[in-house]
C-alpha cells in the first residue's frame, strides 16, 4: 500500500440508480491511485452500492432532483467513506435482516444489503444533522496478499449442493 497521507477525493451524484456506476468507478480509481488492497476496495464498493441503492430507491418522497455527496479518505490505516444526502432519516445500523427458513421459494432479499454493510465494514457511524443523513463507513486496510495467494485463484473451498 502506498503512503496515503492526505489521500482524499469527493464526488457528487444525482439520486438516480444510473448515477451509481460513477461511484463504483470513483472508488475503484481511488483504490488504484493509492494502491489499496482490492479486497478492501471491493468491500467498500459493495457497501456503498447497498446504501446508495437504498437511499435512491426508498429515501425520497418527491420527484425533485437531489444530490448525494460521497467522499473517500485514508485515515490511520483505514479506508473511510462518508455519504451525505437529504433523504428521509435512515440509520443503516438499526436494520435487522431475518432470513426466512426454507428453500429458494421462500427466501427473501430485503434488508440483506444492510447486513452486508454492518458485517463487512469495521465501523459504521450515522448522524442526522440539518436535515441530512451523514453516514461514515470505515474499512481497515490490510497489506495486500502476495501475488498468487489470492484465495480465489486456486478455486478454493469444497463443493456444496443446495439444501
Amino acid at each position, binding site marked *: 500500500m502506498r503512503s496515503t497521507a492526505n489521500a482524499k477525493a469527493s464526488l457528487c451524484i444525482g439520486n438516480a*440508480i*444510473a448515477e*451509481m*456506476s460513477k461511484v*463504483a468507478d470513483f472508488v475503484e480509481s481511488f483504490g488504484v491511485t493509492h494502491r489499496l488492497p*482490492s*479486497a478492501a476496495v*471491493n*468491500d467498500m*464498493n*459493495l457497501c456503498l*452500492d*447497498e446504501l*446508495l*441503492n437504498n437511499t435512491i430507491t426508498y429515501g425520497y418522497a418527491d420527484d425533485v432532483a437531489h444530490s448525494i455527496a460521497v467522499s473517500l479518505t485514508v485515515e490511520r490505516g483505514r479506508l473511510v467513506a462518508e455519504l451525505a444526502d437529504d433523504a428521509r432519516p435512515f440509520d443503516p445500523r438499526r436494520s435487522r435482516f431475518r*432470513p426466512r427458513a426454507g*428453500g*429458494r*421459494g421462500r*427466501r427473501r*432479499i430485503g434488508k*440483506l*444489503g444492510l*447486513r*452486508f454493510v454492518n*458485517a*463487512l465494514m469495521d465501523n459504521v457511524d450515522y448522524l442526522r444533522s440539518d436535515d441530512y443523513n451523514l453516514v461514515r463507513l470505515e474499512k481497515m486496510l490490510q497489506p495486500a496478499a502476495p501475488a498468487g495467494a*489470492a*484465495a*480465489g485463484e486456486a*478455486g*478454493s*473451498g*469444497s*463443493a*456444496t*449442493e*443446495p*439444501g
Partner: protein
Amino acid sequence: MKIAEEQAGGITVVAIDGRIDSNTAKSLEEKLTGLFKSGRNRVIVDCKQLAYITSAGLRVLLLAAKLADKSQGKLALCSMSVEVRRVFDLGEMSDLFAIYPSREEGLAKLA
C-alpha cells in the same frame, strides 16, 4: 461487467468479469432469464473474474435458480473467491446453490 457465454456439451457457461451491482444486475438477469426461457436450462455461472456481488446480484441468481427448478434444469456456480463466498455465507445463500470450486467440477456434475 462483461458477460461471456460458452457451450460445453449441452451446458451453457456464463462467465462474469467485473462487478454485479445495482447497475449491472439487470444485464445478468436478462442473460440468465433468456437462457432458461429458450430451453437452455443447464447453466454454470463462472465467478472466477467476479470482483464482488451485491444483494441485487444475489436476487438475480435466486430468480435464475427458481427458473431452473421450474424448467427441470440446473443452475450451478463455480470458481468463487473467498470474498465472494463470504457474501453468500453472510446472506445465508450458500445452501441454496450448487457451488463448485472449479468450472471443470461443475461441468462434470451437470453433465
